[in-house]
């Protein structure tokens, strides 16, 4: 303000000027920027004309302040109402008004994505949840007993060669020593921890990262995801296993999917089996059999390791590799893509 207002006349004159200015400015505002400029000029917190006028109320003679204040409040309320109305008008117009060129690209935001292995894991989890399974987790760095001993691995046996193990610590290794720590080679230690912790019936799914001493190339990785399932109760049979996993396969790969079971070997299941599904991977090669999981009845020695009566209880377990499933499903031929974390790879799964 150029000069300080000290009389009611000057105050009212300025008030009228502002009111007139507002009546011209506000309805004319054609877009949000013009309206904002009008708002700042009229009622801006720092330089608004009304704001400034308000501060001069105190400079008026005491007996005139009441009358001036009433007038001021009326104008201020009216101006703010007009601004609000204009804002609403512009907002409405922007919703229905025609764009000059509607073919121009929209404003976007970055799209996040789940990892393809997680997408598969989530889907597997959802299906098994319907079948009564809950999620159990366990540590990746494990005691040798949970990884091997409790799971009926014969000590110093070629079965161990299927689990080329990464051991922890800098010292020398003594096989069979319970104090040995390692990176779990499968999610089956979670079976044992769960069996030791809870009373049957048990129906759990254990997803997690497992480690093998494999070189990192197009088809092998030293760490990968595994999904383990375990069902323990009285009277659980191999037929239950086959029926449940067949039901799962038909949910996951589509109704009518054919499955077949053949013999296999895992120290912690007996009988052991592997399940194959007949699928068309969309790669132009038509239907073919794909081995997707190992499974079997839980070996009584495993139940005994966890202090569970193997005469009374029985159960089954399975293990599968979501990474392999993701690769076959999405046509990924080099496993290293799953680990590289290249944003151009990851963003392809944003819509999944």
């Amino acid at each position, binding site marked *: 303000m150029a000069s300080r207002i000290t009389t009611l006349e000057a105050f009212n004159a300025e008030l009228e000027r502002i009111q007139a200015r507002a009546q011209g400015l506000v309805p004319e505002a054609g877009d949000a920027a013009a309206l904002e400029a009008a708002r700042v000029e009229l009622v801006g917190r720092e330089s608004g004309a009304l704001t400034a006028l308000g501060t001069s109320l105190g400079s008026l003679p005491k007996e005139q302040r009441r009358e001036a204040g009433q007038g001021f409040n009326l104008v201020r309320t009216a101006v703010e109402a007009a601004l609000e109305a204009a804002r609403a008008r512009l907002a409405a117009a922007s919703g229905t008004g025609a764009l000059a060129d509607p073919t121009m690209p929209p404003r976007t935001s970055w799209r*996040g994505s789940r990892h393809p292995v997680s997408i598969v894991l989530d889907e597997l989890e959802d299906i098994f949840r319907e079948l*009564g399974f809950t*999620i159990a987790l366990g540590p990746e760095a494990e005691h040798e007993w949970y990884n091997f001993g409790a799971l009926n691995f014969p000590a110093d046996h070629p079965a161990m060669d299927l689990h080329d193990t*990464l051991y922890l*610590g800098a010292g020398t290794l003594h096989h069979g020593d319970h104090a040995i720590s390692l990176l779990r080679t499968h999610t089956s230690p979670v079976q044992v921890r769960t069996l030791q912790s809870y009373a049957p019936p048990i129906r759990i799914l254990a997803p997690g990262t497992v480690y093998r001493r494999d070189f990192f190339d197009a088809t092998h990785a030293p760490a990968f995801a595994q999904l383990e399932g375990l069902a323990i109760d009285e009277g659980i049979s191999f037929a239950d296993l*086959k029926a449940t996993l067949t039901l799962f396969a038909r949910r996951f790969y589509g109704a009518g999917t054919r499955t077949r079971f053949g013999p296999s070997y895992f120290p912690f299941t007996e009988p*052991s089996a592997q399940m194959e599904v007949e699928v068309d991977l969309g790669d132009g090669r038509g239907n073919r059999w794909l081995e997707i999981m190992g499974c079997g009845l839980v070996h009584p020695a495993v139940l005994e390791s*966890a202090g569970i009566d193997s005469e009374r209880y029985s159960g089954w377990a399975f293990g599968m590799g979501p990474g392999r499933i993701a690769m076959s499903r999405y046509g990924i031929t080099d496993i290293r893509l799953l680990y590289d974390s290249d944003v151009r790879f990851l963003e392809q799964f*944003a819509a999944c």
Partner: protein
Amino acid sequence: MLISHDWLRALVPHRRSPEEVRDLISAHVATVDRMERLRGDLRDVVVGRVVQAGRHPNADTLWVTKVDDGSGTLLDVVCGAPVVTVGTLYPFARAGTVLPGGVRLEKRKIRGETSNGMLCSARELGLGADHSGIMALEIDVPPGTSFLEAVDVADVQFDVDVLPNRPDLLSHAGLARELSALTSVAVAIPPELTDLRDIPLQMPVVGAREATSGGITVRVEDLDGCPHYMGVVIRGVTVGPSPDWLVRRLESVGVRSISNVVDATNYMLHGYGQPMHAFDATRLAGNTIVVRTPRAGERLVTLDGVDRALGARMTVIADAERAIGLGGVMGGQNSEVSESTTDLFLEVAYFDPHRIRATRRALGLSTDASYRFERGIDPAATASTLELAAGLVMKVAGGAVDGAPIYVGREFVAPAAVTLRTARAQRLLGDDVPADEMVRLLTSVGFRVQQAEGQLHVMPPSWRNDVSRDADLVEEVARLRGYGVLSDDVSPFRPGTVPDHPLHLLGRRVRDLLVGDGLAEVRPLPFVRGEDETHVRVANPIAEDEPHLRRSLLETLGRRAEVNLSRMQGDVRLFEVGSAFTPRPGGLPLEEVRVGALIMGRRRPPHFTEPEPPAFDAWDAKALAIRIAEVAFPGEAVSLEAGDDRRSWVIGVGPVKRRVGVAGPLALDRPPWAAEAWGVEVTLDVMPNAFVAPAGSHAHAAPGVVRRAHVRYRSLPTTPAAEVDLALLVPDAVPAADVERVVRDAGGDLLERVVLFDEYRGEGLPAGTRSLGWRLTFRDPVRTLRDKEIEGRRQKILRSLENELGVRPRITA
């Protein structure tokens, strides 16, 4: 394990196709990974149909034909056969095909007529001597079909994935036993062995430690390493090439022919699963074989030419002076059979699996022999194998047995009987297999079964070292019967007692948040190069340059961002929910499940309204930290304490500001064009890894129920709010957080919200100060506040700010 279809058929004369055999073995015995027709040199030959044939205009003996090879185009082919029949199928080699013998067919003109390939005779395909005419095929397949697929002219090789529990399957005879059970065709003596000299070996000379026969003395000092040792002397052999049938048998399983004697031992290995060795008997010092542990410092040059230092847990075969073989693994050069060898000592032994395994690992030397001994061969088969082997050697190399065989070692201990309760087997299988059927199935693969009331007493055969309890027999019944017979109807089940692991639910919530925020989830390898003091070391790492486990997820996220930068990707937003490891003395590392996030590059994708969006900065990192912590710790207060660098924060939650993570800039190897990277890491919880209960026992106390904190709903206001703006002149030394605290304290209960909406530095302000604009929202829950009341509070706040912090309002106008 490579298996020849022909060889198998020689042992079990079945009439099944290779496909049927593959499917039977895969369904009941072991997975057949691959099935391949041998005669790969015929791979490009197809079946072709002659659709037109006429005499060659310029040659009486030639035909000009048109051949349908399935390609859709009829090919002109000139043919010299006496007879060509229109409509008949013949083996056809297109131009470009390489025929057996290495001749490459070219498209060429024969007396002026173009020929695009050749209709083949049996001799041209290496299928016999018949050259009288081209090979008319009496089959019905579409033209273009692979000749090998269409016509059963070549052997088929199976690659069987034999798992470690079934060493008995590591031979043709072993698989034949199973195939016999599955096809009900009895095991036979293969044609090549039916004419073995009809001279059975004499009863062996037996000794517990030592025995002599045929001029050779065998002494076993290391009975633990070699509990059963047999041998026989054959004199007068002629070492030379093997007969064709033997060469072919070995070729069919990928083994090269060496000499008749060596081939005979390899035949026994692949045919009967018994690794054996032939020593040159004349090179045995003292005419003695000693089976013993190595002497201190002893060395041996093995057949592969490597000079090896021998260790204490190995078993050597020696003569009176020196080691001549590494028992169960590989022979020595010094006793190798050569062309001049006339006298042999044939060894058939059983070596201890653990000792062989230790030897194999110590030397890094895996052989066909060690592979089988390590898994356990049939200890009761030594005598019968030796008899067959001796006969085979004499058949292919001549000579005669000198004396009785020698047997030194322990008595064979039969596997213990196992009891199978039939009701339990039926219950475990969910299949009412009749007891008689169980007996039939078990007997079919060599078990001896005694039936009793409700149970079977089962004697496993000597070659089944994998069967020791009833579950093993349940598997035998199930696999032989076929898993396919079991019902696909899902039975009712009881819900389990195990609640969802809270970390799983939490991880999913955090992940959903970050995916929604535009970040991409990653699952990188957790290996890094760290320090032994701070990082957990892998004892046998995959890569020596990354021997540690990550201590923080930001270590691996940073490396992943660098990989993206090296690929010219500057907009990188990654996160992971995973484990971080901290060393802990005397046990497993501390394992924490954390969420890590990294943001770098433009805050939004460019748009024509904003061609150059700003890059992520510290405020984005701080916001992300708060968002993650709020989702990870619902209902708990989140506070960020700035670090000394004033651009990173420690994330605290709860009243005591429990430290749960960090946020700040990341030091990356970053090209000049790349924006700064920011990282946030929050620890969700510790993953317990102590023993749940001692081995063999149950905890009998389920883990405590985890109670989640929930947000409490506040009722929606029914009265209007009043807003007051404060423009404050704040010295640089006074943090905004202090101003906010004083404002809140002085503002009282009715102060609902305090928002910093503006910062101004520069002209018109005293040096060392800034102007901060705050918007205060007051509300009384039951009535409308009057201007006077708000003004009173405003004044009080200003007084407190002045008194406590020396902060005053910025005077305008």
